């Protein structure tokens, strides 16, 4: 159904010419974006495109109810722009990023701090938010964390054991991917796309492939799209199983923790069965999937999938059956649905607050147009809800894989990719296991990538973790952190 909106609508994984994107003066553009957000739409991307020394801001909105995307851009401007964050919290990180990357100042932005680097001095410097009170003390859990996890800085304001405020400073993993892609796609670009977030390789590379295929005006062969969907669900299974094990490990519940550790390895080996790499490196390329799988390999995949799913069923049963675990999970790190919607959460974190948001359901593309995966939702918004959503997604991904492996499409898996259309914009959304991965590609006059914007789901969800910790015990922080299990390198790019 068409809605009267000034923005140009386009479906997920399609492209349009740069001139078709509606253009308004800055304040009117921001007014339009604000109006759409007030109507309950979601902001998938907001980034700057430099034009000479001026800057245009491009907005990508997701009309979930209308199952369509919408894009719009502002006329070139410079200096500063009125911040949307004052009235719409979900734009706050995007505007900080625009300020950091392009130097235009969002006026009266309530939390204007660097996103990834502190202009040469490295992240987590400068004044953190301080709670005043004589008995308040700061707990600073620095970049190097206990255990094997990526670096990030968490600054707690505590009154004894209770956390009053948590501020998260990231940027330690910044490798400068977006700067490297401009003028691409170069030889290393696809490998960099695979390592934007190492545990979400398939989702990011599929989004990259969809964007380039949209720009080239083609589509991957059906069997390739099928193979990509299979790999995406395998990746989801592996990571969710790993998370259930890690959650059990954080509350020292050894049966599930040890079992899930092993089962995650089995799921990763299933992906390795398809492409030789446990994380799916080399499985997806623009134009299709270079490595095809014969029937014997697929039946072996089917058989090993059954055993792994049975084992994870057993391990999860222990988790839900143990009362000592349940008392730890429930009412910990609680987020209301209203809060989740206002700060724009995506993925399992949003679905655990009762929001029905899933790119495979709202904006189906590739094989998901033909085979549906039901959306897993749980109402409470606490650690228990996030764990249950993960468990539901494991079951539904398992069913999807069984169903798809019984009906394998025929045909080629790789097609040569024609040249990219000049001066056109492509948007590709994929439901990674953490949530909506959004790649936006803009080609210049000569058909090379003039601007490439990657938005990892963690970019939306880190604020959710900071909120979930308020008025919680600090000893529950690792549990809440693992229930979100967000990517540091996906945020830092």
């Amino acid at each position, binding site marked *: 159904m068409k809605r009267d909106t000034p923005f140009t609508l386009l479906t997920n994984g399609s492209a349009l010419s740069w001139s078709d994107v509606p253009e308004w003066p800055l304040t009117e553009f921001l007014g339009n974006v604000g109006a759409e957000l007030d109507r309950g739409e979601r902001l998938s991307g907001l980034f700057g495109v430099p034009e000479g020394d001026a800057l245009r801001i491009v907005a990508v909105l997701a009309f979930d109810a209308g199952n369509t995307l919408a894009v719009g851009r502002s006329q070139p401007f410079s200096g500063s722009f009125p911040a949307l964050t004052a009235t719409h919290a979900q734009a706050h990180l995007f505007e900080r990023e625009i300020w950091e990357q392009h130097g235009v100042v969002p006026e009266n932005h309530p939390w204007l701090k660097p996103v990834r680097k502190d202009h040469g001095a490295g992240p987590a410097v400068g004044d953190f938010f301080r709670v005043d*009170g004589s008995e308040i003390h700061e707990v600073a859990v*620095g970049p190097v964390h206990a255990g094997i996890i990526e670096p990030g800085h968490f600054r707690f304001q505590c009154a004894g*054991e209770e956390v009053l405020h948590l501020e998260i400073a990231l940027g330690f993993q910044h490798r400068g991917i977006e700067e490297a892609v401009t003028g691409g796609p170069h030889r290393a670009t696809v490998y960099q796309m695979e390592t934007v977030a190492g545990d979400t390789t398939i989702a990011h590379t599929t989004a990259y492939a969809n964007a380039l295929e949209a720009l080239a005006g083609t589509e991957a062969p059906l069997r390739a799209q099928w193979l990509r969907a299979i790999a995406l669900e395998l990746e989801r299974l592996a990571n969710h199983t790993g998370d259930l094990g890690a959650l059990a490990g954080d509350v020292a519940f050894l049966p599930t923790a040890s079992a899930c550790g092993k089962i995650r390895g089995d799921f990763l080996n299933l992906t390795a069965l398809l492409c030789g790499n446990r994380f799916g490196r080399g499985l997806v390329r623009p134009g299709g999937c270079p490595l095809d799988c014969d029937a014997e390999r697929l039946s072996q995949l089917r058989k090993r999938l059954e055993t792994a799913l049975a084992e994870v069923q057993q391990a999860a049963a222990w988790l839900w059956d143990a009362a000592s675990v349940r008392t730890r999970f429930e009412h910990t790190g609680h987020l209301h649905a209203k809060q989740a919607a206002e700060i724009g959460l995506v993925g399992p974190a949003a679905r655990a607050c009762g929001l029905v948001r899933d790119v495979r359901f709202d904006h189906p593309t590739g094989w998901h147009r033909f085979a549906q995966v039901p959306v897993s939702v749980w109402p409470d918004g606490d650690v228990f809800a996030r764990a249950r959503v993960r468990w539901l997604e494991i079951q539904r991904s398992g069913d999807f894989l069984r169903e798809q492996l019984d009906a394998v499409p025929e045909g080629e898996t790789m097609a040569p990719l024609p040249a990219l259309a000049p001066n056109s914009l492509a948007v590709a959304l994929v439901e990674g296991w953490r949530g909506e991965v959004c790649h936006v590609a803009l080609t210049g006059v000569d058909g090379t990538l003039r601007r490439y914007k990657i938005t990892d789901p963690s970019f939306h969800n880190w604020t959710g973790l900071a909120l979930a910790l308020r008025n919680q015990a600090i000893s529950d922080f690792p549990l809440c952190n693992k229930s979100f299990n967000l990517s540091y390198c996906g945020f830092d790019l």
Partner: protein
Amino acid sequence: MMESSAILLTFTLWVYVAGMAGALLFQRAERLANAVGFGLAALGGACGVVFSVSSLAAGQGMTITPVTLWSGPIPGVRFVVEADALSCFFVLVVSLVGLAISVFSLGYVRTYYGRKNVGVMACVFNALLLVTTLVFIAGNLWMFLIAWELMALLAYGMVSFEHEDRETRQAGVLFFIMSHLDAACVLLGFLVLAQAAGGFSFASFRGIGASLSPQQRDVAFVLFVFGFGIKAGIVPLHIWLPVAHPVAPSNISALMSGVLIKTGIYGLVRVCFEFLGPPPMWWGASLLAVGTVSAVLGVLYALMEHDLKRLLAYHSIENIGIILMGLGASLMFLHTGHAVLASLALIAGLYHTINHATFKALLFLGAGAVLHATHTRNMEEMGGLAKRMRWTALFFLVGAVAISALPPLNGFVSEWLTYQSLLHGFGTTTSLVRLMFPLGGAMLALTGALAAACFVKAFGITFLAQPRSDHARDAHEASLPMLIGQGVLTAACVFLGLFPTVFLKLLDPITLQLTGHQLSQQLTMANGLVLSGVAAQGGTVSTLGIMLMFGCLLPVPLALWAVFARKARTRIAPTWDCGQRALTPHMEYTATGFSKPLRMIFKALFRPRREVQREYDFSPYFATTLRFESHMEEVFLTRIYRPVNYGLLRLSRRLRALQAGSLQAYLIYIFVTLVALLLFAL
């Protein structure tokens, strides 16, 4: 032999008088007044110690002859002094602590040069020592009450010594009111006894309880418990103690906490064991119960404090509670006829009295030295003092280990004796009241553990980690006399801890006098190395043995060091901070943060209230300011004292209506009273 100790005693008193006079005389020359005043006080303390130790060591040979100090113009009013074993013990307490504090004060009062009148302080200090000694050795009612009243007045003078700020003046007034409340109760109690005994001398009071009717004895007992209880600071009569002690100058707080609250204990022991005759069961049980409650509440309130001196003041309440547990158990054993157990419990109580006097005075002197260096009592602004005030930190640590009843120091020995008496108490009676003993033991264990937690906080936040303020950063070590003062008390703690059997001999004459048994032989084994309980296989302990074993086992780690780690080097590096830029003092643990879990566990008692003000300009997710305040309710103040206070005020307001101001009304009042008296007289 008796003659020489009497001379020594009078000489001690005259030295104090000389100290007072000297201090007043040289008021102008502060340095001289300080030296003369506190020097003579130290001399008096030393003489007092020699006197009491020699007379206690004399043991059986001590004959008690009352000596008339001064018989004034009013007939029948004579000031009689009589130093029996119990008095000598408490004179030892006041003299030992007085000696140490005087030496400490030589260095400490230098801060008052030019600001306050040091001469007056020295004079009042000497007077306090004199009067307290007189309280302990008072022979008759006149001497006791006059000395008691003078002690209260002088202490009030010292509490409001720094009368500049309002808080001190209010504390002084509260102290004054409570002192006179207890003086009134004590006076009424003694009048009940005097009315039966016909005279005012303590000799005539001995065993007077037998001739009193049970109701009169109970009334006297309750009056004495109230009177001496307020002075000792038992819960619920304790509210003045954590208010008054912290505001006094540190050396005076040490004297008050170390000695003055012991006068209450002396009074209770003198009255309950000597004057009131065989005690009924509920006396001992009530003292044990009040002692347990005081111990637990004292330490719980101490945990919540982040003002160093208030924390120590609350701990005085806790230790008084432990002493009362010993005395209460002793009274219960007297009732059930177990005299040996009664003397063991009494020894436990008395031993803890002198222990508390030494380590509490030591901790207050330590706090004084810290306050002297950092100009603040708030622990949240201290930190890192161990490296700047090395000796004070060591002495404070010894005091902390002692007060937390950890082996091998004296706190552990006296609590061990208390546990022994509580343990054997279970078998002494078959009535349900015997369950109080194990429960008392469990609460004593809770008190010990909470005290340990409190002193980890007090020592850790004050002396360790990074300094939290500029004052703390440039703190400097205390002066030599201050260190010597603390050193004397530290030595006393170590001696009382390692050689209990030696000290127990001094307590023999007291238990002989009060409960008719000498236990030092029975409690000593392995020629003085081991301290044992009264029962045959009842369990033994040897703090000296533990220290020897520490020395004996030390070669094990040293050998491992020599064998494995000879070539290992040590490197100093910044604290591991997860690789971030730098650890700031603001990231250190705070005192309130440290005790927060316990505040949450005992929230029924503390009723913590917390207010969080969150201000934001646009959206609640981005707060501009966040303020957090939490307060605890002073339960006793709000639940008991304030209602009583308001009730009195309302009543007095209503009575003011009587003062109508018209002459006729007054005449009518006179007439009505006359008629009433006549009717009554028929």
